[in-house]
C-alpha cells in the first residue's frame, strides 16, 4: 500500500521533531544564551546584570592573557594531531599488516585509556609527574639522567609540553581502531599485486594504505582538533589549574576561571563566543587544506 503524502510527512515529523526539540534545548538555547550574556556585565551568581554592549569584547581584545591561551590551545592541537596520528597509524599498520599473534590483546590495551575518564587520566599523570615520587623523575634518576629531572607541572617552561603526553596517550586507542577499520577494508589483492611488482612495504604503505585510509585520517584529524579546542580544559583544570603563572591556561580553562572563579560570567560568555568562532574558522581552514579526491583503485 502506498503511503499518502500526509502519512509521509507525519512519519518525517515523528523522526525529526523530537530530535530538533532536543537539539534546540541542549545546543541552540545554550548557544544563543551564551551570545546574549556576552553583552552583559554579570557575576553569574545574582539576578542583576547590566547591559554593556560590546565592552566585554573590547576588554577581551585588550586582555594580555587571552592571546597566550589561544597559542597554548594550538600548541596542544598541533602536538596532539602529530603525536596521536603518527602513533595511531603506526599501531594500526603494525596490528593489521605485521600478522602479530597477540594483535587482539594489544587492541584492547591501546584502547583502554579511552574508556577512562579524563579526570582519572589527569590524576594518574599528576602522580607520574610528581616531582618527588613520580615515575618520570624516578626513571630519569635510575638511568643516570637526574639532571633532567624537574617539577614538570610546576615549571613555567615545561608544564604545557608535559600535558601533551597524557593527552596523546589517552587519544591513541580510538583513532587506532578507526584506522584499523579503514586498513582492514583495503583488499588484500592490492598488496599482493604490489608485492609481485616488487614494491617494498614502505612503498605499499605510502602508495596503497595511506591514500585508501585518507578519509579515516581526515576524520581523525578533524575530531582531534575539535575535541582539543573544546575539551582540553578538562585536563588543564585537573592537572595544573592553568598555572603556574598562566603557563598552561587554554581558552576553555580561562573561560572557567573568569566565569566561575572570578565571577565575571558575562566576560566568560564572551570568551565562549570567541572559542566558537575560532573553532569554526579552524575547522573550515582544515577542511579546505585536507580536501582531496577519494582514491579508488
Amino acid at each position, binding site marked *: 500500500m502506498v503511503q499518502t503524502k500526509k502519512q509521509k510527512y*507525519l512519519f518525517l515529523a515523528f523522526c525529526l521533531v523530537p530530535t530538533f526539540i532536543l537539539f534546540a534545548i541542549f545546543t541552540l538555547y545554550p548557544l544563543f544564551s551564551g551570545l546574549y550574556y556576552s553583552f552583559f556585565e554579570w557575576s553569574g*551568581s545574582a539576578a542583576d546584570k547590566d547591559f554593556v554592549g560590546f565592552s566585554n569584547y573590547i576588554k577581551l581584545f585588550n586582555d594580555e592573557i587571552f592571546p597566550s591561551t589561544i597559542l597554548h590551545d594550538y600548541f596542544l592541537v598541533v602536538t596532539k594531531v602529530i603525536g596521536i596520528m603518527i602513533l595511531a597509524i603506526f599501531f594500526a599498520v603494525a596490528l593489521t599488516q605485521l600478522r602479530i599473534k597477540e594483535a587482539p590483546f594489544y587492541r584492547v590495551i591501546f584502547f583502554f585509556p579511552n574508556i577512562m575518564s579524563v579526570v582519572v587520566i589527569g590524576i594518574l599523570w599528576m602522580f607520574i609527574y*610528581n616531582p618527588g615520587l613520580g615515575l618520570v623523575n624516578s626513571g630519569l634518576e635510575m638511568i643516570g639522567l637526574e639532571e633532567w629531572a624537574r617539577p614538570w607541572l610546576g615549571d613555567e617552561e615545561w608544564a604545557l609540553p608535559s600535558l601533551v603526553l597524557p593527552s596523546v596517550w589517552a587519544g591513541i586507542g580510538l583513532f587506532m581502531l578507526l584506522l584499523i577499520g579503514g586498513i582492514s577494508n583495503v583488499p588484500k589483492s592490492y598488496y599482493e599485486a604490489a608485492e609481485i611488482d616488487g614494491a617494498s612495504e614502505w612503498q605499499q604503505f605510502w602508495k596503497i594504505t595511506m591514500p585508501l585510509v585518507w578519509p579515516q585520517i581526515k576524520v581523525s584529524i578533524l575530531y582531534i582538533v575539535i575535541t582539543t579546542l573544546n575539551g582540553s580544559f578538562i585536563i588543564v583544570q585537573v592537572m595544573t589549574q592553568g598555572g603556574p*603563572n598562566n603557563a598552561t591556561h587554554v581558552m576553555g580553562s580561562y573561560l572557567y576561571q573568569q566565569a566561575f572563579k572570578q565571577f565575571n560570567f558575562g566576560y566568560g560568555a564572551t570568551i565562549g563566543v570567541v572559542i566558537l568562532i575560532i573553532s569554526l574558522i579552524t575547522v573550515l581552514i582544515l577542511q579546505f587544506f585536507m580536501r582531496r579526491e577519494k582514491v579508488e583503485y
Partner: protein
Amino acid sequence: MKKFLQSPYLLLLAMILILGVIAGCSSDTEGEGDDQTEDTEQEDTQNEGSEDTGNGEISGELEIQYFVGGYGDSWWKEVIGDFQEKYPDVTITEHAGPNINEEMRSRWVSNDPPDVVYIDGAGSSETQMVEDGQLMDLTEWLEGIELADGSKLKDSFIVDPADYDGKTYSLPLVFDTWGTWYDKAKFEAEGYEVPSDFESFMSSMEEIQANEDIAPFVTTGQYPYYFLRGVLYPAFGAAGGDQLLADVIQGKEGAWTSEPVLEVMKKVEEMQKAGFIDEGFGALNHTQSQMNFLLGDNAYIPVGFWLPNEMANDTPEDFEYGFIPSPMNDAGEPMAIVPDLRPLAIAEQAENPEAAKAFVEFVFTREYAKSFSEHTGAIMNITGVDLADSNAPGYLIDANKLINDPEQVQIYQKPHPMSADLETPISNSLVSLMLGNITAEEFVQEAEEAAAEYRAGLE
C-alpha cells in the same frame, strides 16, 4: 508494520513523545529547587504548615545554607537542633554539603535565596555577594544584640565584621587563621627551635635543610592564595599595620610598590634564593603539598586552622601538629596574624527575616563558641572563651593562648577579602617569584599593574 505506520497510533505516539520531552524540559522552579538539594536537604517537619503570625513570634519556614568542608557539620546539627527546640514553630530546611554554593547558585540568581547563609568554601564570595546586593544590611540590627552576660555582641567579636563603606552585611562566625604549621614532635625530638621572627625562621630552615636534606618550606602552587593569605598578609600587617593591609587588599595606587611591601617581597625572594622553598611547589595542589608535609618531605607549610581536621585520616601516628603565626615579622616585633573570617549572613531577599535574625542571634554565644572548638578544632569569633577545660585539641589551646597575648601576637584586620579579580593576577606573579623566574622588584611592578587594572574595572 505498514499498517502501524498508517494508523492513528503513530500520530498519538509522536504526540506523547513530543509532549513528554516538552514536559520534561519545562521550567518548574519549585521542582528544580528541590532537585538541586535533594541529597542534602533535611527538613524538620514537626510543625509543617505553621505560618508567621506577624506578632513578633518566630515561626514559619527558615532555610539555612551552609558549606560543609574541613570542619564537618556536627556543630551545625547541634545548633540547629537546639534552635528547633527553642522555636518549635519554625520549620527548618537545611541546604548543606561540600558543593552547596554551586547547588544553590540558581536559587540566588532567581532571587529566591535561603534566609541564612554561612559563606565559606569554593564558589562563594562575600565581597561578590555584597557587590551584587544579595546580603541584608545588619548595621543597625547588630547595635541591639546582646550576649547572655549583657555585653554587646558588636563588642565581643575577636575580629570586627567586614566593613563595606561603614556598613555591616555579615557577622564573622569562624575565626579562621592562617599560619605556619610544623611537626611539634619532630622539632622536640631533634631540638629544632620554633621560630618567632623572620631571622630565626631563616636560620631554622637552614638548619633543617642541612640536617634533613629537604627543602624546608612547601606550599601549594596551584592555589597560590595559600601563601598570599597565610604568609604575605601577616607580613604586610607586621610591616605596615592595618592600613597597609587594607591598601594592598583594595589595590590602592602605589600600595604594592611601596617600600614595606617591597621589603616583604625581598624576604620571599631571599627564601627562594636560599633554596628553602620546595622547587616542586608549583605543581602541587593543596592536598599534595599537605601530604608531602605530613610525610616529612618539608618542615613548614602555611595553611589555615582546618589542616588537622582535613588531614585527620592521613596524619602519621607520631606526628604532632604545631602552629605558629607565619614568622615574617622582624626580630623584636610581635608575630602577626590576619584572621580569615567565615561569616554568617542574612539574604536581602530572605522570606523569613525574623526567624533568620533569631537564628543568627542564637548562634553567637560563648557556649556555642566552646562547642565549636570541640567539634571542629577551630575557633569561633567570640572573645572570652576559655578552652583550657574543653576537649579542644592541644594546638588550638596553644594558639588560643597566643592569640590572646598581644605581647606575643598582634592581630591585624583586613577590611574585607581581596577581590578575585585582583587576587588571581597577583597570585600568578607570586608563583613566578617563588619559582625564581622574576625578582621582588618585578613582582611588585606586576602587582601594581594588576591593581591598576582592578581599579579601572571598578570604575
